[in-house]
């Protein structure tokens, strides 16, 4: 009778005996290698099952590390402000965009059209500038 309740013949019984005996005679080298293989397989299975709970265990540590990294990044970006020295300029040349601002300014049109439209304001302004220049020179 087999393990599954099936009738077995004398031939099958003898064969089973012989095969089991041959298994018992497997030498030490093979047994050792099979043992190593088994350990490797169990380690592989354990490693496969590990990540989920490892994640929860390591979550506080990982969070703290991420926070520290974030703070370090922020501090690095807001570090000592170095003022870049401007190149030395000759006089006070007006910025090129300044003329454009004057032209686009709606008040400028009013000044041109001021009074009789002769541009008296600009003449006056020019006189003032020349006068100041002369005063400075003297």
């Amino acid at each position, binding site marked *: 009778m*087999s*393990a*599954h309740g*099936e009738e077995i*013949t*004398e*031939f*099958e019984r*003898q*064969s*089973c*005996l*012989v*095969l*089991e*005996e*041959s*298994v*018992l*005679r*497997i*030498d*030490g*080298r*093979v*047994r*050792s*290698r*099979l*043992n190593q*293989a*088994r*350990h*490797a*397989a*169990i380690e*592989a*299975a*354990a490693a*496969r*099952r*590990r990540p989920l*709970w490892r994640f929860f265990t390591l979550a506080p540590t990982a969070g703290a590390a991420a926070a520290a990294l974030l703070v370090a990044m922020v501090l690095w970006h807001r570090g000592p402000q170095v003022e870049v020295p401007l190149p030395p300029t000759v006089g006070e040349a007006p910025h090129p965009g300044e003329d454009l601002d004057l032209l686009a300014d709606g008040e400028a049109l009013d000044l041109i059209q001021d009074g009789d439209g002769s541009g008296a304001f600009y003449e006056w302004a020019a006189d003032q500038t020349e006068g100041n220049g002369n005063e400075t020179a003297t």
Partner: protein
Amino acid sequence: MPVSTHGDVELSDSSTNAHSRTLNQFLAGVELKAFKIAQAALRHEDDALDAVQDAMLQLARAYADKPAEEWKPLFYRILENRIRDMQRRRTVRGRVIAWLPFRGDDEDDEPDPIAQAPSNDPSPVKKLELAEAMGALEKALGELPRRQQQVFLLRTLEGLDVAETAIAMGCSEGSVKTHYFRALQALRQQLGESYV
């Protein structure tokens, strides 16, 4: 299912401890028989060891979460696939080598002292009888077609039932019965009804 308890793994991981112990017991229980089955098919010790090792790893990686009762047929199914791959590769390699002008004998024939150590020591007369019967059976098994050899070893040595053998071999239960019947017939013809 009787399982061997030798070589239990020391496991520190408490959450996976029970599962690893079950897997360890299962693998310890099948590894020697699996090796014999692989060796009968491949007729090469190191190839057989590689096949069993691969099957163990594959089972552990892909099927360890399955219920333990399903492991045995799955393990033998994986092993059978691995054996078939190795046989195919060997056939291709044999074809390539056949074209080469010189074939050196690379077999490592150095005697290993550990390998020489017998693992069991029955009485000398019984030992001789069994050794002769083993030799005769192994020779007769080697001459069987692959499927018959496989079904005979799975059923007689590993003790799988028809359904489990069918899963392990990837065929129907009817095929298992047919292959097994033919295997028994061929072996009886070669060895006689009582050969031990």
